[in-house]
């Protein structure tokens, strides 16, 4: 029984890694077409680095991810604190609203924001579809994830710690800064990392809210894939997978050292 479980597991792992391995191998292949390995080369990587458009798309992607993650982490953390610490009207409605970006298919999220931007632009001539609208859209789904992650952490917190600070005369702001925030920091960091990777990964919502001149890497990959596959895309994908693995390994080591 145990052996079958192991065989099954390694077959599934093979399934998970085979396509990625093919891309990595082909990114070093001399031949432009087909899967026959004709020789080792770095040509496709050199071409990639000489492609200035790619650099622009990378910059766009990172600008969107950094700005949207910063805003959504601040708003989401505050929202989580408010939802856990206070009772107020409309609280339940707000909690349900929070789930909407998490559960609704991203194509619905994308077109509803496209509609909003269009209606507002018709009325007041602003905003044009651009990096700005992509950032607004990303914050809208990131906020929900950050809030849920931070809220989970807050609910584990011992409320007497905050009460002690208040009894000692700390103002709400001081209590938050010196007691609550340091204690929920791991949750805030996890939430921010999740928000950041969601933004980097997002294609669908970006697709509907992007305009001319605001191409991100996922949008670029999509449009080139529609034209057919190319070794440059193999190389780009390999680099992105490599960075993903590197970040996850560093994160795992960092976490292990802390625990």
């Amino acid at each position, binding site marked *: 029984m145990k052996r079958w*479980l*192991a065989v*099954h*597991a390694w077959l*599934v*792992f093979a*399934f*998970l*890694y085979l*396509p*990625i391995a*093919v*891309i990595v191998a082909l990114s070093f292949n001399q031949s432009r077409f*087909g*899967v*026959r390995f004709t020789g080792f080369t770095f040509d496709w990587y050199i071409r990639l680095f000489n492609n200035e458009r790619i650099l622009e798309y990378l910059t766009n992607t990172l600008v969107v991810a950094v700005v949207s993650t910063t805003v959504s982490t601040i708003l989401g953390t*505050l*929202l989580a604190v*408010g939802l856990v610490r*206070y009772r*107020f009207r409309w609280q339940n409605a*707000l909690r349900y*609203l929070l*789930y*909407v970006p*998490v*559960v*609704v*298919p991203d*194509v*619905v999220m994308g*077109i*509803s924001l*496209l*509609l*909003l931007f269009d*209606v507002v632009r018709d009325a007041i001539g602003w905003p044009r579809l651009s990096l700005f609208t992509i950032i*607004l*859209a990303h*914050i809208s789904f990131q*906020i929900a994830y950050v809030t*849920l992650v931070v809220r*989970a952490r807050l609910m584990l917190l011992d409320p007497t710690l905050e009460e002690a600070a208040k009894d000692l005369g700390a103002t709400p702001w001081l209590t938050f800064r010196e007691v609550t925030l340091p204690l929920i920091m791991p949750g805030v960091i996890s939430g921010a990392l999740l928000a950041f990777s969601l933004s980097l990964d997002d294609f*669908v919502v970006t697709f*509907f809210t992007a305009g001319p001149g605001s191409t991100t*890497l*996922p949008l670029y*990959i*999509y449009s080139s*894939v*529609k034209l057919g*596959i190319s070794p440059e*895309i193999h190389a780009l*994908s390999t680099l*992105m*997978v490599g960075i*993903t*693995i590197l*970040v*996850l390994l560093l994160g795992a080591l960092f976490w292990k050292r802390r625990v």
Partner: protein
Amino acid sequence: MREAATPWERLRQVLVTVGPGGLWLVLFVLIPTLVMLVASLMSRGSLGQLVPPLGLHNYVRFFSDPLFIEIIGRSLWIGFWSTVLIMLLGYPLAFYIAQSRYKEVLLLLVVIPFFTNFLIRVYAWIVVFQKEGLLNGLITAFGLPPAELLPSTFAVYVATVYTYLPFFVLPLYAAVERIDWSQLEAAYDLGARPIRAFWEAIFPQTVPGLFAGFLLVFIPAVGTFVIADLLGGGKVTLVGNLIQLQFGSAQNWAFGSAVSMVLMAMVLLGLWLYARTQGEKGLDKLV
């Protein structure tokens, strides 16, 4: 003794914490949904813009055309069977990882594809399935004629299973980790055979994780348009493709909004049923 906060002070604290985020959700989640609802009731102008008259005509068109019903049916069908396949692959895997000595490493092996860019994961299957691709390379190496694997429903299935498998394994693994194994021993002590013991003592403990994993996979699998677009290439039209088409070349935003409302209603209905069986805690467990 500190003084109790005045009502005004409390209101200020609520506004400072909940205010900005709550306002954001209202402006960019609630209002867009309402705009979409109104748009779904409007008509298509000569340039594709939204114009009156208002009415239910988009919904009537959707539900009276067998073609559209077929698209919804196909999305649910492919989404459902992909999810079943994912569960068959992922369920034993979660147990294997939880019992392994190297569980951190194995977990990382599941997390890496999870965080690898979605488009790259779909793209990888084009490389495998295309005419000059890996699979046909193998087939022709055996002297057989190359197969037409792209576009095909088969390719859509494989890529859907591949893309969403980690989404299922991770929450299920969390459930398996919390299993109380002493119940298994109790079942053995009571004379149960291995299969019965597993079914009665272990399986029920994983049911909440199974439900959560099912929804986490099923909803995006039904709503996706990228996989069918890239690997089904016009052969496989799902509800996501229909929506994209209306907002793209078909230029009928009103009808596209109506289809989106139908998709959203289906998701919310599913979640409502889930919340009724699992309680509201179940919703939290989902994320």
